[in-house]
């Protein structure tokens, strides 16, 4: 549960559909189409006849911004040009910031001609503890950060009632005759933001074309915890994976296990050739183990971030452990040092430690040969109900496996096994 980015396409559709409930003169028509590798462009043209009649904008819709700066936007194009552009760029690998990813989703919408940059307006809404903050500027566009001193900041108490907002009156006077309409728009937008589960919304820019407000570029995040309440409003909206992170086969597998159980199983591979592999019980503890490995100067050696918690079944723990062991034992350390597996964790509340180790032990037994061949040392630290038996099981396992297993309980500081494993203590 957290704030999740949504596609510009979905956000604009939501605005077109719902904003008129809040600002009745907002009649942005939501002419917009989404294209993925599976989309038949001819069908797009049938469903959206305007694509053949209007000049178009095409841009990737994959949760990254500054598309203009990256040369990833096609402006004022014909339908044929738009098709050509999409065909050329679909599946292309691009570098955005420091992230390499594949372009796979584009949006098409009508090109709104506007002569001067001064016509571009800026509005953003963000949540901040006891208040929401609305940022507004008449100098929107790509230079907004440089023009930040032009931004009006309007603060709204989180307990403020919708009828006491009067946001229009708090917009800058320089809007002139458009102030009333823009005021209704901003106030409507803010109320929609509150009611429909938004956590962040930025429209930069929007313009007034033919007396209508049209959002040109938009970024939105929703609070996915609201899904239960917003199931009607959000129908069809999905939360895409952030740009550039195609999951590895193993990560996808763990994600799949995670999605079908009530327990939490997480795996992120950082460096498949890394020497240190972690398998930590509990979300809080898993972060701290990764921290400590970094803080002690072994960030480069850390192979993965891994967490299992929420009382996973023996079978799921077994599958999860096997996935990690498989990755861990694919090759020896290039410099011939032992590889380390840290089976860590804090003190469990009510989870039976011996029971959760069952799946781990089964997997370790399966990988006995490969663990030996790869030269793996295992460090275990855990506490909680029945931990003595759990640790005893691990010690006995060491005798059978023929690889060193070092086992510790609550008397040893939680992360001490990191320095033991890596610091050569």
């Amino acid at each position, binding site marked *: *549960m957290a704030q999740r980015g949504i596609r510009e396409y979905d956000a604009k559709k939501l605005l077109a559909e719902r904003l008129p409930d809040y600002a009745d003169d907002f009649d942005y028509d939501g002419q917009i189409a989404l294209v993925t590798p599976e989309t038949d462009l001819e069908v797009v043209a049938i469903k959206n006849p305007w694509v053949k009649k209007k000049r178009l904008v095409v841009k990737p819709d994959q949760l990254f911004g500054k598309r203009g700066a990256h040369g990833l936007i096609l402006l004022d194009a014909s339908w044929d040009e738009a098709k050509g552009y999409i065909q050329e760029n679909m599946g292309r690998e691009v570098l955005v910031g420091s992230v390499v990813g594949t372009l796979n989703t584009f949006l098409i919408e009508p090109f709104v001609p506007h002569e001067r940059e001064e016509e571009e307006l800026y509005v953003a809404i963000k949540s901040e503890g006891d208040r929401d903050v609305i940022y507004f500027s008449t100098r929107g566009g790509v230079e907004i950060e440089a023009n930040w001193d032009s931004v009006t900041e309007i603060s709204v108490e*989180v307990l403020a009632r919708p009828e006491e907002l009067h946001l229009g009156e708090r917009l800058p006077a320089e809007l002139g005759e458009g102030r009333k309409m823009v005021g209704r728009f901003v106030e409507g937008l803010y109320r929609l933001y509150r009611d429909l589960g938004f956590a962040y919304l930025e429209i930069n820019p929007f313009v007034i074309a033919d007396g209508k407000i049209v959002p040109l570029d938009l970024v939105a995040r929703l609070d996915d915890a609201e899904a*239960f309440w917003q199931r009607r409003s959000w129908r069809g909206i999905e939360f895409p994976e952030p740009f550039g992170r195609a999951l590895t086969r193993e990560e996808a597998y763990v994600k799949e296990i995670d999605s079908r159980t009530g327990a939490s199983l997480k795996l992120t591979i*950082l460096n498949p050739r890394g020497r240190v592999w972690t398998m930590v019980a*509990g*979300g809080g503890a898993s972060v701290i183990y990764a*921290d400590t490995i970094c803080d002690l100067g072994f960030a480069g050696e850390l192979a993965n971030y891994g*967490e299992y918690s929420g009382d996973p079944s023996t079978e799921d723990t077994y599958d999860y452990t096997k996935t990690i062991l498989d990755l861990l034992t694919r090759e020896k350390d290039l410099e011939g040092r032992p590889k380390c597996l840290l089976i860590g964790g804090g003190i469990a509340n009510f989870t039976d430690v011996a029971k959760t180790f069952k799946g781990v032990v089964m997997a370790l037994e399966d990988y006995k040969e490969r663990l030996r061949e790869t030269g793996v040392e295992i460090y275990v630290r855990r506490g909680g109900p029945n931990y003595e038996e759990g640790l005893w099981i691990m010690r006995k396992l060491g005798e059978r496996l023929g690889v060193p297993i070092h086992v510790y309980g609550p008397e040893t500081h939680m992360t001490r096994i990191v320095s033991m494993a890596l610091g050569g203590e």
Partner: protein
Amino acid sequence: MRMKGYKLFDRSTRALVYGFQTNAIQRMLDFDYLCNRSVPSVAAIINPNRAGIQKVFWGTEEILLPMYKTIPEAAAAHPSAEVMVNFASFRSAFDTTMEALGQPSIKTVAIIAEGVPERMARVMAATARKMKKTIIGPATVGGLAAGAFRIGNTAGTIENIVESKLHRPGSVGFVSKSGGMLNEAFNIIARNSSGVVEGIAIGGDRYPGSSLLDHILRFEANPQVAIIACLGEVGGTDEYRIVEALKAGQIKKPLVIWVTGTCSKILPGSVQFGHAGAKAQTDLETADAKNRALKEAGAIVPESFDSYGDEIRKVYEGLLAEGKVRKPEEPEIPKIPMDYAKAASEGIVRKSTNLICTISDDRGEEVLYAGKPLGRVLEDGMGIGGVIGLLWFKKEIPPWAAEFIELVLQIVADHGPAVSAAHNAIVASCAGKDLISSLASGLLTIGPRFGGAIDDAAREFKRARDAGLSPEEFVRDMKAKGVNIPGIGHRIKSVKNPDKRVELLIGYARENFERTDLLDYALSVQEITTAKKGNLILNVDGCIGILFIDLMGSCEVFDERDIDDVIRYGYLNGLFALGRSIGIIGHILDQKRLDSRLYRHPQDDIAYMLPEFE
């Protein structure tokens, strides 16, 4: 007596628990008992589904806790309860918390639910602040005041509580975001100092109801606290408020703090840790930046989490040497009996059972019929006959035998409205009784005179044959006793007008049974009786009883003892009652649909023959 503002809980704090969380409530009470509290910390339970009372353990004794359906009722009845531990789901956490905040007596609400929307969390937090009340959570296990009060499941098992010295106050005030790390923190603190005074987890969401700083300032004001310890987290800017408070001189006690999530710099940007708030959206929100700022502001920040405990130890030993803290007295710890279920699961206790069941088992994932999972029973198409084989005989009977049983059930299913069972059921139904009562009324007529002939026929014929009596001897013997041969004789049917049902049963048996000895014996008996009178034929009851014995004799899964059991325990009456229930229910439903009125037997149909009164 009101507590000082810096204290949320003391040894007299009482709570309302929202949600029927029997385990958590028992854990709170066990903690109380461990701490030698004089009154239980749970005043009442709020259970929207049921009001009444709930029985709980207080040490070795059992006590009753009142249970209310609504928060206002509970608050009104228990004005001294200042805390609500809210176990409502993420869906109702907001409404229940807002309602609790509206009760003048409730000062603190702990919200356990995970997944409460951010806006709801912010509205709750702002409302609480406005009313000068405290929210702990959402998305937390809660927290505890050592030796005084425990929120729900905080700190896990009794063993862990004792191990981490939470049954009596120490000298450290601890606050973290993560509830999962609370146990570990209690352990670290207990091993490196005299333990905690209070430990709170504010929850891992982006907008917790109270902040790390809120609790740190309480600890600062609380004279029992000598050292403040805190675990922050990557994401959000809460820790900067601590930096400002440090700079403003609001925190004078030593503050040992570590912000977790320093590894986020090497993780790909998209990794979301378990906590919703744990994602840095600006450089300022990174763990490294926060740790740096805290250190610069004068907090004690270790090099890594690895030396967090060492830093606490240094501070504690320093204060001990200066005489600023004293080692606490170690109180005697009352022993809390282990729950029977736990002891049994660990093999520590045993007890003999009062009941035995050998036919079915509902404890596993799937119910077992005589050891066979129900799914397999259905897959194998065992039918009603097969299921009767499993549940009555604990045996898998062959399909031809199962089919015979089903044939019998169909044949006995009904015999019109006039027979005892149907008539009784109809009368009961007409008297306005419900279906089950009417059915029972009908079934109660089944016995020696009605339906019982099946059992009797099986028994008598088998007895005669086993005793080696010739059919003639048997008939003579029965006549000498003055007893009608059960299973022989029909009101209407006769040799010339045979009973179709009997023909059908015999035909099936001849075709499918390996042996029909008892039938053959019975037919020889019939020859003798029908010679006397045409309607003294083998009737359907007799036929069923006799053929059932032949069925068992033909079926290798049954032995002689099984056959004896069938006769001794009235299995065949069971078969009749089972089949006939179908018809009886039919008659009852029929009467219900007809909306029949009360039946009163006509007086002219009764011969009133009373003795003369003198």
